[in-house]
């Protein structure tokens, strides 16, 4: 393992400190319990809080700011944060309109946020994101994982919250966006958790992991490496299967890098994916290409499609000012 780190146990705090220092105009960092909040506390709105294991940067800390999150709770690398973090963050940012937690659907995140919600002295609701269609949802599983589509949920819900909308309305939008969003990822290499010091999984030079999770969890299957177009075709098909969009749907296409995949390749993927969706009668009217929900140093990428409607479009387009997503101001 070669990484720009000092002691393995200090990685998280040193990195969070760097983030807070680089973006001191936007965020404030609290250590022990670890959470970050906007530099300027927002008033008269539902407080939007997200969090999860670290290692997916810029998710979630990079989305704190006007039009998106009020606070984020970073856990250890790939490990859900703990309820004391959510409680302290909520205490710091709630503004008498309740707290909405945006939580990626993993047993650990769900349970920790659930316990926080139970202990919270004020009203809360939770949007569970579950856009990863690599996991075929069936009665015997805990359902799909939340992956890069979470960014779209956070953006739209964050925008709505700025308008003063109430807790249930915000939750409803989050649930709607989530239900119209599907993602699937492909890994070319494994990530390496600093504390583990070695790759999470072994993969040969001629292999790819189709449907990989953003923590390096195994996916649908191990396949032979091949041309990008045929890889993208399979991912696009899985997404179409999951969403079954009607013809003439309008959509946002997000090509997300896992951390070690160059933009050159992400745009090449975009090129093919956009063509395939268009051939399927879908109008790609919004796009996002880059590292938005990463898996440490994994080489790989995911494709996310979100079927838009006027409400989602409006909240996607509205101004946002965070470290990782910024437009309109």
């Amino acid at each position: 393992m070669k990484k720009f780190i000092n002691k393995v146990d200090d990685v998280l705090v040193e990195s969070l400190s760097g983030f807070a220092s680089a973006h001191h105009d936007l965020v404030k960092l609290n250590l022990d319990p670890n959470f970050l909040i906007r530099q300027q506390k927002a008033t008269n709105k539902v407080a939007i809080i997200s969090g999860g294991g670290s290692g997916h940067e810029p998710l979630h800390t990079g989305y704190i700011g006007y039009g998106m999150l009020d606070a984020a709770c970073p856990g250890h690398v790939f490990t859900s944060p703990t309820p004391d973090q959510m409680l302290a963050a909520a205490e710091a940012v709630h503004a008498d309109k309740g707290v909405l937690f945006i939580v990626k659907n993993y047993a650990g995140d769900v349970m920790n946020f659930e316990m926080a919600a139970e202990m919270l002295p004020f009203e809360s609701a939770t949007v569970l994101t579950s856009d990863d269609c690599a996991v075929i949802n069936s009665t015997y599983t805990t359902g799909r994982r939340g992956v890069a589509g979470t960014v779209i949920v956070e953006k739209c819900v964050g925008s709505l919250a700025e308008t003063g909308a109430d807790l249930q309305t915000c939750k409803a939008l989050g649930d709607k966006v989530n239900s119209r969003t599907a993602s699937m990822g492909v890994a070319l290499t494994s990530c390496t958790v600093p504390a583990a010091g070695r790759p999470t999984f072994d993969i040969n030079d001629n292999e790819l992991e189709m449907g990989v999770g953003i923590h390096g969890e195994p996916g649908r299957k191990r396949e032979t490496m091949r041309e990008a177009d045929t890889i993208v075709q399979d991912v696009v098909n899985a997404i179409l299967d999951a969403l079954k969009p009607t013809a003439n749907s309008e959509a946002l296409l997000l090509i997300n890098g896992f951390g070690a995949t160059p933009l050159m390749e992400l745009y090449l993927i975009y090129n093919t994916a956009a063509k395939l969706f268009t051939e399927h009668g879908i109008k790609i009217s919004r796009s996002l290409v880059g590292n938005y929900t990463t898996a440490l140093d994994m080489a790989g990428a995911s494709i996310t499609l979100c079927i838009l409607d006027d409400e989602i479009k409006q909240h996607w387009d509205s101004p946002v000012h965070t470290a990782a997503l910024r437009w309109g101001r």
Partner: protein
Amino acid sequence: MKTSFILSAAESIRDAILDHESELESLDRAIGDGDHYINMKRGAGAIVELHAELAALSADAALNKIGLKLLSTIGGASGPLLASFFMSMAKILKEKNDDTITTYAAAFTAGVEAVQQRGKAGLGEKTMLDVLIPVAQQFSALAASNADIKTTCQALMQTAEEGMLATKALIATKGRAASLGERAIGHIDPGAKSCQLMINAVCNQVLASQL
């Protein structure tokens, strides 16, 4: 239960976890995200560091404090589950306020029920519950039949091991491995393994104190 017993059990558990670094790590790498060992080490270490503070408390208060500490230290799936286990156990010990095996068995069972509630899982879902549920059942049964401590401990260790090994053949339907489908078969569940290790450590501790 003496608080001093809890303190030394905590150390044995920590040692057992540390001793199984590579095994725990590779189990979670195979069907999870590779952090289970790190999580357990962080949790166990935090408890051992609480030594002085815990020593001043009654057994039930110490167990409750352990639960709270695990809750704010481990994170992940195992954090809230193990925290719920210890806090529920503490509650029963406090209520019953006696030192019988029956009470311990009831407390253990309450802990396991809390894990089931929190995780919304049951037997056969390839989780720590495949160790905890059979051990709780057997513990209650042995306590009801007044089995001696040595027999009880040995039986529980055996059951824990069997439960842990049994997860190997299962498909996971809860937790991170649930997304793997058939690919999870052939791997022991990491949480089941660490629970087996903890039960083992505590039972051996009891057996040693019986000598």
